[in-house]
């Protein structure tokens, strides 16, 4: 079953076509990889799917329904959540508060319940706390629940972002370079966690530069270059694709790295 589908998705910034007629399908229960050199438009696709950018052309369907042009909070409520390439935690709030904010769209009390501390407020609050504690426990962050987010080491901040995203009970989770800045062991542990997330019924779309991670857990991989999709297939297919090799090598030659 198709969970997410983009059709001819395109966005332009001034003269630059950052994403160029991209068709992409993510099926329910999959872990799909999205790779490509820097600046090829991966993050921009995430930004369009989550409603931060409005596409210039094309469609985005989620569960068969169009979501392009909808506000980010509406899309989150529909069941898409994400992490950010450059960590965007609520830095001066506690770990617990960060996760509770993730629960926001699943809590049912209104403003007056909050103001007057009604029964409903107490019920929803304890429910959310339970969810948060369970998630923090799975990710090994429970002991740090009272710590301020900005005091966490980098690797744990990335994990906390995943926990916060999961707190909104998404059907589809978009991860933007979750292994960036992690050492090999941490990356390995992260792979296990991502699989675990999938096994709880969350579909995953993963942007990642660490090829070990991508090749290790993705069932399918799509490759972008200069905003266009140039290949799609299994890890093995991608690794032997001429155009993909060219795209990565070409860029490297150009930047002189």
């Amino acid at each position, binding site marked *: 079953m198709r969970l997410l589908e983009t059709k001819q998705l395109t966005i332009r*910034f001034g003269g630059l076509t950052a994403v160029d007629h991209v068709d992409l399908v993510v099926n329910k229960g999959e872990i799909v990889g999205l790779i490509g050199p820097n600046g090829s438009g991966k*993050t921009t696709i995430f*930004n369009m799917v989550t409603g*931060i*950018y409005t596409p210039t052309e094309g469609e985005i369907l989620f569960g068969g329904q169009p979501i392009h042009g909808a506000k980010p909070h509406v899309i989150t409520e529909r069941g898409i959540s994400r992490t*950010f390439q450059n960590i965007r935690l609520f830095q001066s709030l506690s770990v617990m508060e960060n996760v509770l904010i993730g629960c926001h769209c699943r809590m049912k009390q209104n403003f007056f319940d909050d103001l007057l501390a009604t029964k409903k407020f107490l019920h929803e609050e304890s429910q959310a706390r339970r969810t948060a504690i369970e998630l923090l426990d799975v990710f090994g962050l429970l002991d740090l629940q009272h710590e301020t987010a900005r005091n966490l080491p980098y690797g744990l901040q990335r994990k906390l972002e995943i926990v916060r995203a999961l707190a909104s009970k998404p059907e589809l989770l978009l991860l933007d370079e979750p292994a960036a800045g992690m050492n090999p062991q941490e990356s390995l542990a992260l792979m296990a966690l991502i699989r675990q997330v999938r096994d709880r019924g969350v579909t995953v779309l993963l942007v990642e530069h660490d090829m070990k991670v991508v090749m290790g857990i993705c069932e399918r991989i799509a490759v972008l270059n200069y905003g266009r999709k140039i290949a799609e297939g299994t890890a093995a297919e991608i690794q032997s694709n001429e155009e993909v090799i060219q795209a990565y090598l070409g860029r490297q030659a150009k930047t002189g790295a």
Partner: protein
Amino acid sequence: MQNFIQQVMNGLVLGSVYALIALGLTMIYGVLGLINWAHGEFYMVGAFVGYILAVRMGLPYFVALVGAMLIMAVFGIVVERVVFLPLRGRPNMNVIIGTLGLSVFLLDGANLTMGPDPVRFPSIYTDQFIRVLGISFTVQRLLVVIVTLVLIAVLRLFIRNHKLGKAMRACSQDLQAASLMGIEINHVAMITAAIAASLAAAAGTLIGPIFLVNPQMSIAAVGKAFAVTILGGLGNVEGAVVAGFTLGLAESLTVAYISSYLKEIVAFAILITTLVFKPEGIFGKHSVEKV
């Protein structure tokens, strides 16, 4: 028709003052990245300095004008070192409170030393009249507009061609990059504050003989200066000039053809409308914030 020309002249006089004040405000924002909430007081202090030089010390008007600009340039440098520097890079809140502290200090300092009552600031040019196109106005009014245009032209040449002017432009585009390129940020900051303060002094000394001079004049000025700066686009020097004259004309025509009650509201109406519909200013381009 005559009335219309008269009102246009009034508008140009007001617009000159607004442009001069707003230029300094927008330059300080562009280069130092902070909003100077005491900028109305720069204008007021400048007017009093001009008044002291011309009236109390009896210097010729033009000497007083240049003197006020020079003295205020030094004042600007001192303020940059003592007030702006400690606030540089601080959160918006701290900058607001810090420069408001300066504003309270200058306003009440002026109340204390010069008294709260308005003083007359006569110049020989307020008694000489010119007749053009069937209307007559004082030489002082013509002077306001001409001196303003000259100052704007000089400023433009300086920013375009002088080494320091170019450095100022570089800083207003990207402070960090400018400092990496070896630009001495501290010098640029001091020069900017000096220019901003002396333009405000010019505004005060030019308009002083037409209106009265008192400490409270800073309060009305700051609201107008904000309206102009926003309309022109924060940090946009050309924008400030165009917007200054636009507001001046809008105000005087409102007085003439709608109601004098609305004069004060015009500035704020323009301010809010611009912010709501085109916050990047009339000349700014809209861009998608990068995430």
